[in-house]
């Protein structure tokens, strides 16, 4: 009897120990997960934080390395918009907004039809068309710039808005098409047929059923398209003029009072202005954006 009891106690003790080890391991694992998460947060956010802190720091303390905000001022934002050193940041913001809007709207209007066809219809050469569009999205910008540089010089388009918008469409349109194609493929198209059965015309079914469902996909694609156009630098750095340059070019060539001193605080202020709206947009629509970004690669 004693042997049996002791065996039972031993077993229970063994189980307890086992459970404890498992618990400890779990705790340890979740502890490691949290440490990793903190490292990721720091790595991703610290440089961005540093940009914002510097943007609000007095220019005399540019190289102050205290981690918390010190010598806080708004002067840098005034300097960023100041045009007396040959900077055109305010104008550049408007230019980027204008170029980005036109590129996004045009790409969406053209791309939505192509995406519908690729997601919904069956036809010859579908793979060829998809391959062509994907190839176009990976196309190196420098391969376009030389002929465009010469062409635009010859027809007097250098420094015009259309010289910036047209090449930009070539980068944004493929992205738009393949993002929307993936979204469209996931949509419950049966509803369209149900609506037809219930007596809607094809037009009504599209307007009343499909459009509201497709709106979020189109909106997400629009954000991605706009960000992509907003970031464009290569083409703009070669084909724009002072009057039409977008913000990326303005920031890259930002000049200060002294020619050999880089006005970092003002540049960080400009960078903050350019970035904050995007970051807010991205954080608000985080889920959708991630879905859109990864749509082309997996599924």
């Amino acid at each position, binding site marked *: 009897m004693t042997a049996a009891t002791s065996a039972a106690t031993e077993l229970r003790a063994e189980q307890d120990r086992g459970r404890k080890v498992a618990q400890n391991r779990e705790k340890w694992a979740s502890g490691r997960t949290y440490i990793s998460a903190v490292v990721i947060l720091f790595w991703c956010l610290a440089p961005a934080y540093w940009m914002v802190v510097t943007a609000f720091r007095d220019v005399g303390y540019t190289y102050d390395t205290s981690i918390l905000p010190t010598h806080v001022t708004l002067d840098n934002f005034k300097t960023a918009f100041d045009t007396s050193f040959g900077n055109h940041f305010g104008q550049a913001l408007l230019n980027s907004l204008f170029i980005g809007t036109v590129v996004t709207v045009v790409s969406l209007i053209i791309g939505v039809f192509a995406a519908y066809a690729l997601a919904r219809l069956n036809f010859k050469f579908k793979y060829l068309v998809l391959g062509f569009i994907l190839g176009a999205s990976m196309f190196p910008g420098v391969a376009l710039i030389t002929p*465009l540089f010469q062409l635009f010089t010859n027809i007097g388009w250098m420094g015009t808005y259309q010289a910036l918008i047209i090449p930009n469409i070539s980068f944004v349109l493929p992205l738009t098409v393949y993002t929307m194609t993936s979204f469209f493929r996931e949509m419950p198209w049966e509803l369209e047929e149900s609506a037809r059965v219930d007596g809607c015309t094809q037009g009504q079914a599209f307007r009343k059923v499909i459009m509201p469902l497709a709106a979020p996909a189109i909106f997400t694609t629009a954000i991605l398209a706009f960000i992509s156009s907003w970031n464009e630098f290569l083409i703009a750095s070669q084909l724009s003029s002072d009057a039409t340059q977008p913000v990326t070019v303005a920031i890259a060539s930002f000049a200060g009072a002294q020619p050999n001193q880089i006005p970092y605080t003002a540049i960080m202020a400009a*960078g903050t202005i350019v970035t904050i709206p*995007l*970051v807010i947009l991205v954080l608000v629509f985080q889920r959708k954006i991630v879905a859109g970004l990864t749509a082309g690669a997996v599924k």
Partner: protein
Amino acid sequence: MATEVGPTSVKAPASGGAPIHHAPKGVGEDNRIATQGRWAAWLLAPTIIALSVVIVYPIITAIVMSFQKDAGLDPATGLFVEGGPAGFSNYINWIFQQCPAPSGGTVDCPPGTLGAQFWSATGTTFFFTIVTVALETVLGFWMAVIMARAFRGRSLVRAAVLVPWAIPTAVTAKLWLFIFAFEGIGNKLFNTSILWTGSEWPARWAVIIADVWKTTPFMALLILAGLQMIPAEVYEAAKVDGATAWQRFRMITLPLVKPALMVAILFRTLDALRMFDLPYILTGGANNTTTLSILVINQIRQGFNAAAALSTITFIIIFLVAFIFVRFLGANVVEQQTGAGKGKK
């Protein structure tokens, strides 16, 4: 996954021009495909036309230009020449680094000229590509694995990784230029006094670090999306069978995430091969950080046609790398795109 019906099913012969040979239904199916084909042609026309105008036309022009001589002063006679057909001389100028000699014929391009920089720029471009993509893959995989776990604050991490991605590259370059300034926070933090943009290796590492910071999130999100498609039951079954964590990673995670991973690596590789903004703004291409794209831009104002030859070479290099990826490494982008892999899930 939407359960699609009829001709839109992904299992239907998508590229099938081949008529379906079964009984009376086949005729209707044929008609259906023909009608859809007509519709598709109309819907696709704007995109195809737009891309032809903005991509295909410039490419053909660039290839034509690359076989033309640049107008300019003839070094032999000192007279202005109009240009004209050049044969392969522009390509020879880059690949064999031969420049026209004052006495006629060609000599090795003197050091410092753009013609002498082709191979070093190619080397730099590939060096950047291999190092950044390798680092991004490892870091991105690690981030994705962490983000795939369930823990409180996970959505915060997922939001945070989007921040570097959302910052325009031009701003990223200026930000890291400031961090790597001599008196900047970078040197202070690591207690070093490196002139980051002043010599070859620090300058290269500055570019690499900035690029990894900016683009790892994209990689991580693509891999995360791949990870999330692996059903949890597979892991549980393996656990029951006594597989260790490492075995589960090697035998389940890696093979199942491979298609997504390959596509992510392909996208990033092609992107890195055309790297321009970051080194152009961060180092100006100094200290051996000139990539092929920067070399093209530097050449444009010295002669369109030689620049066109170089951009064509760049294009061919990128095309070859993409081809190798798709053909030999199994990065099947189109299949992923069309959802042919959907059945596997």
